């Protein structure tokens, strides 16, 4: 029972880490970044490179954040900037960029599956069961991301500008806020978060050029259900991630793997506006 609760908490944390960047971009720009999956992959490979260079393992997510952030800013300024008025085309163009990024990774690193070591190994005894220390660490990472961004949005000048752009972009521009710059930065940060997520999850799984796609789909569905608030994203990750764990454990792992996508689609059918105001 305790293991199940820990599984749910850590799964939700992982989902939150993976989705947060996508949600931030969607919240501010109303654009779905389908390159998010490839950015997760890029982050994982950044962690791999960091390990090969002999950098300490705790630096991997930060290195990945830098790589992803730079990639994101390049993507925003070259492609996404031209597509704000064509949201469906923005999905397609970012998906195409994801393909480009994925193929570039293959050219650079090959197709084979590789592994990255976790910064902390082993298990910890909790109430009679042993549980992976690294998975628990990810809960802390998720909390740090959630609290950090809530602070940035509510406590800084950049956050104020961002919220102004979310609420009313035209008015914000009229008040002298550089909406173009806010979007540029947001896309960079969202992309950086995606890559950092890739670096954070690699010790749990292997690294391969297509690893980002399943994560992208779950993150996309979670963001669709959540609307544009980090708090609702946390709830969605707990509820849908929880369902995934429960169904995987008691029914079948295959159905569990589908739980998020199917349940989110049904939830959206019943409540099209999402759960942002629930």
């Amino acid at each position, binding site marked *: 029972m305790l293991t199940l609760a820990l599984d749910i908490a850590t799964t939700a944390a992982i989902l939150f880490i993976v989705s947060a960047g996508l949600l931030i971009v969607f919240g501010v720009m109303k654009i779905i970044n389908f390159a998010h999956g490839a950015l997760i992959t890029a982050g994982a490979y950044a962690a791999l490179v960091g390990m090969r260079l002999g950098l300490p393992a705790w630096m991997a997510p930060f290195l990945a954040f830098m790589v992803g952030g730079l990639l994101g800013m390049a993507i925003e300024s070259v492609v996404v900037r031209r597509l704000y008025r064509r949201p469906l085309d923005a999905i397609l163009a970012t998906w*195409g960029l994801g393909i480009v990024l994925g193929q570039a990774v293959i050219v650079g690193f090959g197709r084979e599956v590789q592994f990255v070591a976790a910064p902390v190994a082993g298990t910890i005894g909790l109430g009679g069961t042993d549980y992976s220390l690294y998975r628990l660490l990810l809960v802390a990472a998720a909390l740090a991301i959630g609290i950090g961004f809530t602070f940035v949005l509510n406590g800084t000048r950049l956050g104020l500008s961002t919220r102004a752009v979310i609420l009313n972009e035209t008015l914000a521009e009229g008040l002298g806020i550089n909406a173009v710059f806010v979007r540029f930065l947001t896309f960079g940060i969202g992309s950086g978060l995606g890559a950092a997520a890739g670096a954070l999850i690699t010790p749990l799984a292997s690294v391969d050029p297509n690893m980002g796609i399943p994560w992208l789909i779950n993150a996309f569905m979670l963001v669709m259900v959540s609307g544009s608030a980090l708090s609702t994203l946390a709830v969605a990750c707990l509820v849908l991630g929880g369902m995934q764990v429960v169904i995987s454990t008691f029914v079948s792992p295959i159905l569990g793997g589908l739980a998020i996508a199917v349940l989110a689609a049904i939830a959206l059918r019943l409540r*099209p506006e999402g759960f942002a105001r629930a």
Partner: protein
Amino acid sequence: MPDLLTPRRRIALAALAAGLLVVVAPWIVDTYTASILARAFFVAIAALTVDVLWGYSGVLTFGQSAFFGIGAYALAMTFTHVGFDAGGIALAFGLAVIVAGLVAALVGWLSFYHGSTPLYASVVSLVLPIVLVQLIYAGGETTGSSSGLVGFQTFDLDLETWFRLAGLATVAVAAAGYLLLHSDAGRILAALRDNEARCSYIGINVERLRLGILVVCAIVAALAGLGHAALGGVAAPENASFVFGTQLVIMVALGGRGTLLGAVLGALGIELASAYLSGSLPFIWELIVGIAFVAVIVLFPAGLIGALRRLIPGDRADAAPRLQTAAPLPRADRDMMVEARGVTRQFGSLAVLNGVSFSARRGELVSLVGPNGAGKTTLIRCLADGLERTGGEISIVGRPIGRLPPHRLVAFGLGRKFQAASVFNTLTVADCLRIARSRRDPMSWFDRSPVLSLPQAARQVIEGGGLGDRLGDVAGDLSHGLKQALELAMVLALEPDVVLLDEPTAGLTRAERSAFGAILTDLVRREGLCVLLVEHDLDFVREISSRIIVLHQGQIALDGTVEQVVNAPLVHEIYTGGHVPTAETAS
């Protein structure tokens, strides 16, 4: 001799030429190329369905691969487990059609509902192949799991025959699609893409139409998948995957969306090039496709065909149809046109309308006035859409509207003109009007009619408003005033008993405005229409109204003749705010 080359003859000639090419090609190209192209033809048919859904009707779908996979697995599973005989063949076809149709109906029901967004349909189309592939993985022996089904007995045809079969099927699907989509009725798909709300308020059941299109496209894609599996002797999870679904979209985007020909060229080109190049340039090739795809989406959204069209300008405009006056419908012999009792609209705890009751009769022109936020537009919305209000009863021409959606209320005799001119931007003026007439004059799925029948009133607006000689022009290119006139003519083409107009004169010049006023008063007097008008310009209201209703803070503050309202002190208080103590504190 442009008269000899009607669009239908042109497409027939093109299809004939393409068919001939397909028949001759196996003698010219080498065996390897022929085998690649034979398979690519089936992929091209699936790409055609993506183009119909995305390019024509505006629903971006990643899920057509799922139907392709259903067809492939219907054949592979039947031939593996039931056997390859006459019964097995019939069963394979039957399963492909029925399963694809049922799944499409389910997906359509999920995707398309009153108020659904195009993005949601894309979400569902993304989930479908993912679910299907997981089911295939979980199917064990039945589906062959991750390695798919191979080694079953299948049709023993030589490559040349397969090539011609698949090629002719592609030409037939493309030509039939072209005829259907460019017929009068086929323009409705473009209308759906341009402006779904306008379609509902013309009386088209948008959800059912979209569902129907999806079912047809699903069945065609499933048959393509069946052909692909029969030719290759294999059904693999990749055939149904989300990645293949996105590849179909890429093919259509590169070739040119909304052209059909672009889908075929995109599919054949990519399949052929990747067969040749993925050997010599294994990963670079996909990198190139990715870069080309991004570049096309950003820089040339119309794709290859669109770029070619821009280089070779030609006269593609259809001849504008001749106008005719439709025989007038017998009017309902009721006097009471609109009755609202206690209509309430709440958003959470905020009541935008609070117990609004009024009625309007035949031959009345009732203006709804009031300050911003009084609830005027909300009231119009509640009258035109049974799902909008949260309380109260409304009857239109004596029939209670219940919770009926807008397209059903059109049949009650209701027409609604939106605040911003709402027309079909990529269609011609004539097509806009013809679609508006679709409830009265069923449109052909095979042909374009040389005449356009309009009721007298709509014809007057068209000819009097300066649109008479612009029937062949694209509606999106019209000036603001002409768009407003076109939308009004579209509403009148429905031959409504009740017309709702939301600020129809906003943004019009003074001359356009008085012309508009004259048309309205004429309609009311001669045709006995009942017009409800939301308007800010009190002078205009005073000139044309037979009665004025003043809304204030979600309630009816006054309901009376022009004199009664214009001279009422309450109106001055509401508008200037100065004399009412509560209003002062409120502002």
